[in-house]
């Protein structure tokens, strides 16, 4: 019987500008060399659901690390309060996000059982930030789950500093898996088509799947947006993709 154990714990990593950040690490406990996954939490924050995903990646054989992107503004606050504080302050600056993901990737690579391959995944706002990280850092795989504002900028008047990322597409450093809902408006099917075409034009390796009957946040198992068929199929595609690129 194979040894079957994971360890999940809060650790401190060095993020953008060397800032100390809280992060959630989940990893298999054997000595086998493993690929790593930086899991970017969604706008609702560094929450229970995101930590559950990290543990799932660990049970599938990956070193998973979730940096708390709101740690600076809201140390010690509950995830929902921290998310509200961060929203009130305009969200996470793009430059800082890239630095924090780099810090998380470096932390993984410094672990004794890292195989030096690191992927990134995020949902919702984390999907956009996944694309941003994959265009800004040398990574081995990226999974964008319904990230909005990759192709289009936020609506007029929204007090957020970020813009679209389509101009960064030539810098995409790794294969990209995109999982989307056909009934989503942010991002819309038209935006996905545009991104797909741009990636194809630039010869960037990518694989997009858009699910019928699914809108935004179809992976969120405790929300009304959950769509089990899309979510189960999507999880399968994520693990197939990471097995190919992070092994």
């Amino acid at each position, binding site marked *: 019987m194979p040894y079957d154990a994971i360890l999940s714990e809060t650790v401190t990593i060095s993020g953008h500008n060397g800032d100390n950040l809280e992060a959630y690490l989940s990893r298999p406990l054997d000595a086998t060399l493993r690929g790593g996954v930086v899991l970017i939490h969604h706008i*609702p924050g560094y929450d229970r659901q995101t930590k559950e995903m990290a543990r799932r990646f660990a049970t599938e054989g990956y070193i998973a690390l979730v940096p708390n992107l709101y740690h600076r503004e809201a140390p010690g606050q509950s995830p929902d309060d921290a998310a*509200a504080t961060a929203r009130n302050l305009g969200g996470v600056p793009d430059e800082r996000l890239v630095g924090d993901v780099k810090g998380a990737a470096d932390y993984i690579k410094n672990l004794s059982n890292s195989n030096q391959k690191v992927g990134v995944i995020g949902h919702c*706002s984390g999907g956009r930030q996944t694309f941003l990280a994959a265009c800004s850092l040398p990574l081995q795989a990226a999974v964008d789950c319904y990230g909005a504002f990759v192709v289009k900028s936020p*609506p007029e008047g929204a007090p957020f500093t970020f813009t679209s990322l389509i101009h960064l597409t030539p810098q995409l450093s790794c294969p990209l898996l995109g999982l989307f809902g056909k009934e989503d408006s942010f991002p819309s099917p038209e935006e996905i088509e545009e991104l797909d075409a741009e990636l194809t034009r630039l010869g960037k390796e990518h694989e997009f799947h858009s699910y019928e009957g699914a809108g935004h946040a179809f992976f969120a198992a405790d929300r009304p947006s959950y769509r089990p068929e899309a979510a189960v199929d999507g999880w399968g595609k994520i693990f197939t993709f990471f097995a190919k690129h992070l092994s």
Partner: protein
Amino acid sequence: MCTYRTEIIETKGSGKGTLAWTTVDEATVYFDHPVHAPFAHSINIDFRNTALTNGERIALELEPKSALKMAQTILQLLKDTPIEITELDNVIA
């Protein structure tokens, strides 16, 4: 979908949080996914005392029809109350 639409307004008033009453001098109002309410989207309001840095807020997540009814009720109350008391004119309910 995540609308990201957020409005921040100054307020003068008080609210009661988990421990005690506090001044609320700012409200963040947004239409987006709720954390707790069992709907895909809601009107969310976070009342805050900006002098506090511990993230404490008085939070509401209202289903859109409830939020509309709340807004209409507030407007109606302000319209029906004499201007000498509200010091507001031209309230449209």
